């Protein structure tokens, strides 16, 4: 039986792994088959992670975290977790290839998944003008007019990045103020290719085999209008990934995994959580990394208490 299993490979998962590995707990970390590295893998320059005054590319930062975790003995598995059993003394983690791992403790660092707009056209036009990844898909919108939906840092980053390709980028936001950090806002405001449409939401997406336009609804006046675009990038936030633990761990009203006070302890003994899966407020790499360290320390303490 293993001492500790870590599910998730973003900053929280790898920070937990670095701490747990240095404590000699030989952690196994499940990184998933196609999304290892978590959300930073889809970003470009990360400018606010301490220790990198010149910035660092998101994927490079994650590669370094993994290298550091492996250096101290973390075993990384590129497997998708399909099921977990958390309530007994022996925790079980099942992966899609059929294997079951058993351990005395588990750290959940599964992060969050992009929110969808919830429109009927979304599924049909996904990959035909609707995108969730500016760094992947910006290339296909050279000299096109596109829209970014959202008002946070991700939306500002995507909009600014997309001006490298697009001739015009509309940012559509539900409110009249942005949630994004001041520096990101300013960069977007200063960009002549970016135009803001406030107090508005996307009511419908037009297009038979690719996006041709949007119907916008002004939330203050209720009026609708049409906007001609060839692409739409959705950055309206994320939902915590808790599907695996719904019936086993207590969740908060916001849908995150509930933890006790300042700790990483979940409602199940020996099960800890860190990163965006417990945080609907800050959602920063550095905060997730800190939470990962806490989870590993809490797990270490728990494992030591089993020996008594």
């Amino acid at each position, binding site marked *: 039986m293993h001492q500790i299993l870590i599910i998730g490979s973003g900053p929280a998962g790898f920070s937990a792994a670095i701490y747990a590995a240095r404590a000699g707990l030989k952690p196994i970390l499940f990184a998933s088959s196609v999304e290892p590295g978590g959300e930073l893998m889809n970003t470009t320059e990360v400018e606010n992670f301490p220790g990198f005054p010149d910035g660092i590319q998101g*994927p490079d930062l994650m590669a370094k975290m993994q290298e550091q975790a492996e250096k101290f003995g973390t075993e990384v598995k590129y497997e998708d977790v399909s099921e977990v059993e958390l309530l007994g003394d022996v925790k079980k983690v099942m992966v899609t290839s059929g294997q079951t791992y058993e351990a005395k403790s588990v750290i959940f660092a599964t992060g969050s998944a992009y929110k969808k707009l919830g429109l009927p056209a979304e599924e049909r036009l996904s990959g035909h003008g609707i995108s969730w990844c500016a760094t992947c898909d910006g290339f296909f919108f050279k000299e096109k007019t596109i829209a970014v939906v959202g008002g946070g840092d991700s939306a500002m980053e995507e909009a600014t990045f997309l001006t490298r390709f697009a001739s015009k980028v509309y940012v559509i936001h539900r409110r009249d103020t942005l949630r994004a950090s001041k520096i990101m806002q300013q960069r977007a405001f200063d960009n002549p290719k970016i135009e803001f449409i406030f107090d508005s939401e996307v009511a419908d997406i037009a297009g038979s085999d690719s996006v041709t336009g949007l119907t916008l609804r002004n939330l203050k006046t209720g009026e609708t209008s049409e906007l001609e675009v060839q*692409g739409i990038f959705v950055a309206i936030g994320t939902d915590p990934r808790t599907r695996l633990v719904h019936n086993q761990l207590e969740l908060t009203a916001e849908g995150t995994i509930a933890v006790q006070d300042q700790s990483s302890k979940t409602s199940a003994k020996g099960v800890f959580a860190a990163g965006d899966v417990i945080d609907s407020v800050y959602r920063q790499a550095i905060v997730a990394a800190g939470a990962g360290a806490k989870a590993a320390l809490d797990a270490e303490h728990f494992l030591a208490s089993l020996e008594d």
Partner: protein
Amino acid sequence: MSAPITVTERNFDELVLGSEIPVLVDFWAVWCGPCRAVAPVLDEIAQEYDGQVLVAKVNVDEEPGLAAKFKITSIPTMKIFVSGREEKNLVGAMPKVAIEQKFKEYLA
């Protein structure tokens, strides 16, 4: 042992549309993180389904004509061709089992 093949605008018709077995075509680029993540999965599929499924890769940077022809606006996009006809369109990186489910029905 079989690995994915690289196809271009010049040989697409011959290698993909003319294939006697189903073809899984992956539209990708080096700067696309999810494409890199799904690459080892496609290598595995090429190896495990050697002779049953052909895995073909289209680099959209080098083959803008093919990307435009198939209206690719998101990568990775994977398309399944059977007997010269496009049967399925898969958008985004997905785990191996999810990709397998999409082409299983076309296996001989």
